[in-house]
């Protein structure tokens, strides 16, 4: 149970990351989320449960439907939130390094 509540553990799973990316652009129902995956519906529900338990997703009742949306505050706490920014710079610098090594030897 402890593992399940660990945010980093939660975002380590590719399907759960995909769910977060999907829901980040708009709040969605479990059914709409599941429609984007080949995975069985109960598996998606399980992922949603884990993401909700560790507060990355929040539920909001709208009529009869429950919508899932991103908890931006929690996402911000996760170091991974700035990981794409770090990765972008890392890619650039690695390219710089490769180019200059060639430059040196030519």
């Amino acid at each position, binding site marked *: 149970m402890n593992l399940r509540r660990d945010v980093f553990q939660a975002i380590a799973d590719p399907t759960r990351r*995909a769910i977060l*990316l*999907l829901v*980040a*652009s708009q709040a969605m129902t479990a059914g709409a989320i599941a*429609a*984007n995956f080949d995975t069985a519906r109960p598996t998606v529900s399980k992922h949603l449960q884990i993401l909700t338990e560790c507060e990355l997703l929040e539920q909001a009742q709208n009529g009869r439907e429950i919508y899932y949306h991103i908890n931006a505050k929690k996402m911000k706490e996760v170091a991974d*939130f*700035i*990981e*794409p*920014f*770090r*990765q*972008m*710079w*890392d890619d*650039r*610098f*690695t*390219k*710089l*390094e490769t*180019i*200059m*090594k060639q*430059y*040196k030897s030519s």
Partner: protein
Amino acid sequence: MERKTKINAEDGKQELVITREFDLPLELLFKAYVEPDIVEQWMGTKVLKLDSKKHGSYQFETTDPKGNKYGFNGIIHAFSPNQKITRTFEMENTPFGVQLELLEFEQLTDDTSKLTMHVIYESVAQRDQVMQLPFAQGINMAHNRLQNIVGKLN
């Protein structure tokens, strides 16, 4: 795995620090920031102008796969070869404002060097927005991919 590029962005501050150690002599690292044709290669941008000196300026332009052009420009405030570049950076036609960049170049050994990039934004909100850009782009790309897949199913 050791992360070569580190980002230090404290909560609630309008600045961040990017550091990176290179397996390159200091002179070569610095050259990569000065020679327009080299900048073009690693930044993946077209260099329209790069006048590396005090009171100099630069202008870059990138083109996305759809042919849309994006401009970047800035003014160089200080320029000390192999030591420091102080400049502004601005993404044209965006709400992100101007950022101040202080780039410090250091020799570690004969063959290794270090870059410290101190970036100061107009506000905390702007820093956070810029930092989240690649994340947002990732979201859009993932979303577009999913829409494409879903589109094909229909």
